[in-house]
């Protein structure tokens, strides 16, 4: 790349380069008939030479996104209104997939599991705030050490993490049930019992995301001016009072951001169902999520139209929920 770059740069003679000052003058002189319009276009959109570079530099990404993301999105929406023959042909089916999905006996349980998982995942937020606030009090070398330890679950491969937790949750040999037995509790088979599997997965989800949330909260805490606390201290406010009256309100933009992404990722939960439960698990029927249903319909059961309908519904729900969160933020988020 560096080899071609001087040639290209040299190819454009200096006077014609899109200098913000020179460009309007040049273009204006050319379109002498209607100087006002030309000047306005150039002022708003720049010189045509700048356009060419803009389009060229955006082109590779735009083509890739169009081919691999935008067009597929359109196709999926179309597929959701079709039924798929055994040999690949698609026929218009109207709303049949949506009706079938809404009357799917698996839907209520899967929807509840997905919502429950997301709600449980939200519990990571208060935990992360407390740890981030505590870490904010500490100075010196131990800060880096703590941050490293809390963040290791975030960078670890989910497939590997799920394997470790499956081992910890093991009903017969798992460490968790051994520790419970020490205090006289006979633990269940956590991930192969439909009553516990969603909670077991949510605990792993929380454990894996705390370090990530802490980083965002730590950045938010750094932005709170010190003198607020000094003033509160002069007024005799204790640490707990300071936390609730200063830290929490001023951290609300970060809390808002984290809760939006937590809900988005919670409602798309798929990895742990596949990784921690697996396809032959007796608890699977009681522990499927919406995203897992999608995977099953599209890639295991050859019900692509139905799967695409699920994906479309999931998208609509996500967008609506995010919109609602953005509306509600006015009530509790303070932008300093």
């Amino acid at each position, binding site marked *: 790349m560096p080899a071609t770059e001087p040639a290209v740069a040299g190819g454009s003679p200096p006077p014609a380069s899109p200098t913000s000052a020179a460009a309007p003058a040049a273009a204006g002189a050319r379109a002498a008939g209607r100087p006002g319009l030309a000047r306005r276009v150039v002022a708003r959109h720049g010189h045509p030479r700048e356009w060419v570079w*803009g389009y060229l530099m955006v082109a590779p*990404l735009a083509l890739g996104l169009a081919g691999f*993301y935008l067009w597929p*999105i359109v196709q999926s929406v179309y597929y959701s209104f079709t039924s798929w023959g055994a040999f690949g042909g698609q026929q218009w089916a109207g709303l049949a997939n949506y009706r079938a999905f809404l009357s799917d006996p698996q839907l209520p349980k899967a929807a509840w599991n997905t919502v429950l998982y997301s709600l449980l995942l939200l519990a990571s937020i208060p935990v992360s705030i407390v740890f981030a606030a505590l870490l904010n009090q500490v100075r010196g070398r131990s800060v880096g050490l703590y941050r490293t330890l809390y963040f290791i679950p975030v960078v670890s491969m989910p497939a590997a993490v799920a394997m470790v937790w499956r081992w910890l949750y093991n009903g017969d*040999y798992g460490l968790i049930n051994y520790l419970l037995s020490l205090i006289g509790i006979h633990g269940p088979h956590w991930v192969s019992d439909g009553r516990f599997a969603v909670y077991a997965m949510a605990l792993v989800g929380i454990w894996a995301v705390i370090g990530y949330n802490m980083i*965002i909260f730590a*950045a938010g805490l750094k932005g709170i001016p010190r003198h607020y606390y000094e003033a509160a201290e002069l007024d005799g406010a204790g640490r707990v009072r300071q936390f609730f009256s200063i830290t929490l309100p001023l951290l609300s933009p970060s809390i808002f951001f984290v809760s939006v992404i937590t809900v988005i990722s919670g409602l798309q939960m798929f990895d742990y169902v596949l990784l921690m439960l697996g396809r032959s698990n007796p608890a699977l029927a009681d522990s499927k999520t919406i995203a897992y249903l999608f995977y099953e319909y599209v890639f295991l059961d050859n019900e692509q139209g139905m799967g695409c309908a699920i994906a479309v519904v999931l998208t609509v729900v996500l967008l609506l929920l995010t919109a609602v969160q953005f509306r509600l933020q006015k009530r509790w988020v303070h932008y300093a």
Partner: protein
Amino acid sequence: MRSQRLWPVHVVLAIGAAAMIAPFLWQLLTSLQTLGEATHVPPTFLPGWRWSNYGEVFTSMPFLRQFLNTVVITVVRVAAQLLFCSMAGYAFARLRFPGRNVLFLVLLSVLMVPSQVYLLPQYQILMHLGLLNTLTGIVLPGLFSAFGTFMLRQFFLSLPVDVEEAARLDGAGPLRIFWSVMLPLAKPGLISLGVLTVLWSWNDLLWPLVVTSDAGQMPLSVGLATLQGEHVTDYPVLMAGSLLASLPMIAMFLVSQRRITEGIAFTGSK
């Protein structure tokens, strides 16, 4: 006096930290035991120093092959994303052209759609191209990132305009300004995007899961996922394998901790 008031803080933080790494310590412990020791009740808290479990990882699954697959996939995705996202991010941030805002809105809309929506058509594209079960196929959609473009656009917007202005007055064209002036200035943003992409690519599961069925073409994430569904219940070997699979990311995190945390904090603030 200050340190006296701080000790309860340290106690709570230490308990939390212990909860964070206890699973890994247990994993390490089990990985060095025989199956008999691992499934002993009550559990044995001493390692058996059975290093051969780590050797067995390479014979019970194509670990080395899948490790190299993961490295290749990750390197190609990172290189492509850095190039395409920085070019487009710069153009969106600093160049003016008709349709720029509309294009950018379309890009943001891709960002808001969950991956389930484009998964099946992407799979079909690969099928038509004959690229199922190939590294090329796994890599292809991830060469382009709406997120990365958005992130770098925000980064370019945060850079001062005067350096660029000076280069322009010296007669440098947009490509030259981008390549020799702005890219060096954007290095922190590029590194942040790079490590976040490495992390995402290394751990990515759903996409490679649906496009590979041949163990020799799988990345490690899919290899481990299919392994535990199957015959293998040799927990010590599974623990050794999963530890080896996570280790490169933990090592990268230890080296580039600041960049990762900065990158995450940056996306959180925008």
